[in-house]
């Protein structure tokens, strides 16, 4: 293992060669009868940018707040860099947090906001100010040092919040919806800046977000949370291409789901009987399934080909275009099958396409056996 490589390149989670930097062991947080975080265990490696992804109320923020020390776990352990965090109060933890609301001190200038944490550490004022200057340069806010937070735009406030949380060189930076308050365009730009800053400083980031696109762009790994539990951990392509459950398949991106029963299995290829499609579907899998077991097949909209002529493919169904949405780079079709099931299909718009497929046209939808994913739960 080389120190030059980023976590993204080392991928320490594939083979357990590194000791995890953050170990979360069987953490539970209950509020009365309700378990906001339910027996979560998670290992995060040094230099990772780990995203906790989930809908509101799934417990991701509570987990983050337990790492910061604002909430005490009902049971379980948190270890950061080999040190047990039980009994370590929030102001003494080697973590810093970037708040969703930014929580900039309104009565202090930008530079005093950033210097606040350094001065609390007992660092001399000249040295603190020098480090604040470096940090302001990193987030490109050198000219705004004397401004008050309310004199800054949302994007600038976001950078001040980031600078303030990074200036103490924490072992672990916790980011609560870091880009949530920015508009779409700014968010996309900021995502890449955030990755650059993270890689240049080598700080471990844990990001909480409900935005799956943000999680896909930012993270080395994603932990998908639902109802207080982590339902799947994996690299972004793995989460997208090989979801473990219907929930994950549905939550990340959009998906067409067929419910059916296993008919016959030939090597790794299954034939599934389903009333949703009207025909039997063929799908590849490495999972062990029993004959007649109830399964779901998930097919991403971009894996389905839409055409006027009947193609030769593993799976072909016939339907009628119900709706077309033109988005410029691609078009989204909603096609109603003879069974009444509506499928979503995306098609990228190329220069030499013939006449575009329109409303009410009869079309064929096709996809290969490798395009579908078999889900058992």
């Amino acid at each position, binding site marked *: 293992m080389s120190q030059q490589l980023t976590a993204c390149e080392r991928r320490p989670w594939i083979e357990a060669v590194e000791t995890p930097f953050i170990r979360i062991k069987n953490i539970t947080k209950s509020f009365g009868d309700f378990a906001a975080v339910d027996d979560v265990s998670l290992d995060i490696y040094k230099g990772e940018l780990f995203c906790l992804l989930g809908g509101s109320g799934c417990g991701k923020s509570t987990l983050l707040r337990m790492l*910061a020390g*604002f909430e005490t776990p009902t049971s379980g352990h948190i270890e950061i860099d080999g040190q047990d965090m039980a009994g370590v*109060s*929030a*102001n*003494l933890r080697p*973590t*810093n*947090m970037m*708040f*969703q*609301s930014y*929580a*900039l*001190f*309104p*009565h202090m200038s930008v530079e005093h906001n950033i210097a*606040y*944490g350094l001065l*609390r*550490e007992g660092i001399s004022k000249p040295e603190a100010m020098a480090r604040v200057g470096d940090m302001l340069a990193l987030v490109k806010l050198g000219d705004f040092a004397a401004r*008050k937070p*309310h004199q800054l735009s949302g994007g600038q406030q976001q950078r001040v919040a980031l600078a*303030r*949380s990074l200036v*103490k060189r924490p072992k672990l930076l916790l980011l609560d919806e870091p880009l949530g308050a920015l508009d779409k365009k700014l968010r996309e730009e900021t995502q890449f800046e955030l990755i650059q800053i993270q890689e240049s400083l080598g700080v471990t980031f844990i990001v909480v977000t409900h935005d799956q696109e943000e999680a896909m762009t930012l993270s080395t790994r994603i932990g998908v949370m639902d109802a207080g539990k982590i339902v799947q951990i994996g690299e972004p392509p793995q989460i997208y291409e090989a979801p473990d459950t219907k929930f994950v398949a549905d939550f990340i991106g959009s998906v067409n789901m067929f419910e059916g029963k296993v008919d016959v299995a030939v090597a790794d290829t299954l034939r599934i009987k389903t009333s949703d499609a009207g025909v039997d579907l063929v799908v590849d899998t490495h999972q062990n399934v029993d004959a007649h077991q109830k399964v779901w097949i998930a097919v991403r909209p971009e894996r389905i080909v839409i055409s006027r002529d009947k193609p030769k493919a593993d799976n072909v169904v016939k339907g009628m275009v119900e709706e077309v949405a033109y988005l410029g780079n691609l078009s989204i079709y909603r096609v109603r099958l003879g069974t009444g099931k509506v499928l979503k299909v995306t098609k990228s718009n190329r220069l030499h396409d013939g006449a575009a497929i329109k409303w009410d046209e009869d079309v064929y939808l096709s996809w290969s056996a490798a395009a579908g994913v078999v889900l058992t739960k």
Partner: protein
Amino acid sequence: MRALLARLGLNGRTLVIAVPMVWLLVFFLIPFLVVLKISVAEPLIARPPYSPLFVDGAIKATFSNYAYLWQDALYINAYLSSIKIAFFATVLALLIGYPMAYYIARSAEPKRSLLLLLIVLPFWTSFLLRVYAWIGILKTKGILNLILMKIGVISEPLIIMQTDIAVYIGIVYTYLPFMILPLYANLVKLDDSLLEASTDLGARPVTTFIKITLPLSLPGIIAGSMLVFIPAIGEFVIPALLGGPDTLMIGKILWSEFFSNRDWPVASAVAIAMLVLLVIPIMLLRMAEGKQGAAT
């Protein structure tokens, strides 16, 4: 109706403002001008007991009453003593009121409403009755002395009544809600995440309070202090009932000028001088509020 109002240059908006304006004019400005007029008259043994302002079409005014306030040390001492008592009472009210306001603002909802109700509950009883009640508590054979002697803290009764201490107790007790309510209104708006951010950046609770909570609650501190300080300067009932003959406050002087000496012109001059004395802190308050308004 609308056409008539329009002809008079009035619309709905000016009409709404006109009502309080007329009220202030009739019940504040005119009485003030009357007092101002009396303050530049000369005392007479007559009815009314002062000289008229207009004599044979000419204005006859004298500033001797104001000069008199300056010459007799009694008045200046009374002003200074009033400011001193009001100032220390304000500081005491702040020291007692701030933790109470902070606690209420940090409480969860049903409890918070109950605590706020308890703060305003005393207003349901007459102010005068409540001050009288304090006599019963503080007097030599009062409740406080009886309890303290019973549990053996003291052997001789404490002399509190008719001292400045009683006046302080009375003022702080009476005006405490006026300190707590604006402080509460300020502190309840304080964003929890700011306190968490301060903790997260390594500040101990005391540091967070001094660096974050206190500066952000400054508008509340100023508003509460003014609401205590201003009425406390002119307070008459509390020093008259709880204070002794040594308690020197301008409200008491004013009363005795009017009712014992029947020197209306000097009494009026005392009142006008007190008003000027009060206008300065009010203007300071307005300026602080204006600055706060410009900042947000």
